[in-house]
């Protein structure tokens, strides 16, 4: 398959070309960069929605319910579902599709599972790159689902234009998301499994916590919504709230600032990746050994490598 032909083909709705293009950007290196350069001018229209929350909160099921609601409204939906890579073997079992069966057979939906891998450029880059391709393939909403369990995941949420944090009742007395720093990144809270005991309490706690947070006049106030994702209940209100958030970003002129911040992160990550690639010359292994032996310090060695690479 000729990589340069992939972009026009995926724009024309060729799903196989899209799937192959995502593999290429996931693998990285010069072919990935060429592909992204070709896709970039055709992207930018999609609304990126990050969905995150603790394991078992029902994220995949909620993503399915939301995708169905968007489909009812005639919106094409791309989904990137991220699961962790095993730090021991480098392999992964990606099981999010199990809960997304209801979306099968619909050409207006494209689902891609992604392993977090040990990425130098960061997982946020890999998902953002895949989102560029889905965007170029004219998917109007791109949902990125991750387990909210660490900095990498919070970064992904940040790359999205709207971030939805999913909670469930009965996870203990205090809301776990505060610990993970997700209170600050959420544009929207969803208390899923709201038919369970304690859902009201979880909603109240989240609202109370949000009232304590500093609040600028005119700023977006994250709503706390409830859902029973297995029954599709609450999906319409969530989709409405995402639309309101998108309109808010537009009206306040913050969409531009958001795009600017996202662009800055993307550029920084790209510089990092290319600098590292160029620094990995013949002297690399030798310097690694000398740093390990404590004959050199890592910063001094980095200076030497960057100078040698002409950076």
């Amino acid at each position, binding site marked *: 398959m000729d990589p340069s032909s992939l972009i026009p083909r995926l724009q024309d709705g060729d799903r*196989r070309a899209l799937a192959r293009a995502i593999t290429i950007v996931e*693998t990285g290196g010069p072919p990935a960069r060429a592909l992204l350069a070709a896709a970039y001018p055709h992207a930018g229209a999609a609304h990126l929605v990050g969905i995150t929350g603790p394991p078992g909160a029902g994220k995949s099921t909620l993503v399915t319910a939301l995708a169905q609601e968007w489909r009812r409204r005639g919106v094409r939906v791309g989904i990137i579902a991220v699961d962790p890579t095993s730090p021991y073997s480098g392999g992964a079992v*990606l099981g999010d599709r199990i809960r997304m069966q209801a979306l099968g057979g619909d050409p207006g939906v494209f689902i891609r599972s992604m392993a977090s891998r040990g990425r130098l450029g960061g997982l946020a880059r890999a998902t953002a790159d895949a989102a560029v391709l889905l965007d170029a393939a004219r998917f109007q909403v791109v949902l990125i689902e991750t387990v909210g369990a660490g900095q990498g995941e919070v970064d992904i949420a940040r790359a999205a234009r709207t971030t939805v944090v999913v909670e469930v009742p009965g996870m203990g007395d205090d809301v776990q998301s505060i610990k993970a720093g997700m209170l600050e990144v959420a544009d929207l809270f969803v208390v899923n499994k709201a038919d369970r005991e304690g859902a009201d309490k979880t909603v109240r706690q989240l609202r109370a916590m949000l009232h304590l947070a500093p609040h600028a006049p005119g700023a977006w106030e994250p709503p706390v919504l409830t859902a029973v994702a297995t029954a599709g209940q609450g999906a319409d209100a969530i989709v409405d709230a995402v639309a309101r958030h998108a309109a808010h970003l537009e009206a306040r002129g913050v969409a531009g600032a958001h795009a600017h911040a996202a662009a800055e992160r993307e550029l920084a990550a790209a510089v990092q990746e290319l600098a590292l690639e160029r620094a990995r010359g013949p002297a690399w292994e030798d310097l690694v050994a000398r740093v390990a032996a404590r004959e050199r310090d890592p910063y001094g060695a980095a200076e030497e490598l960057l100078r040698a690479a002409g950076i």
Partner: protein
Amino acid sequence: MERKIRVLVAKPGLDGHDRGAKVIARALRDAGMEVIYTGLQQTPEMIVEAALQEDVDVIGLSILSGAHMTLLPKVTRLLKEQGMDDVLVVAGGIISDEDAATLKAQHGIAAVFGPGSSTHEIVKFIREKAGVARD
């Protein structure tokens, strides 16, 4: 970054026993592969669609219901229709030697691993054959 071997593990048909499929999924993960597990009761159409979207190198089909002579050839036929005959298809489950020979000779199934196959042997086979026909 080197490209990882991506494998779709699926259960076509109606039997509800996925222990074997889960053991295989785990063994492949431990061998450093990325395994997309799609769960029970998959139609051939669903399997091929998932394989397409996930751009996998390998499809592993686990089937215990006895419907393998209907369902497995249908998967490989649909793959061919999509131009995806470079995807390696292997099967596991309760499949007689005679059926296994037919599936391999006539229906594009690369290997059949019956009960008692070692995960070692399966990993080795996939490592050697996966992704050879592509790119």
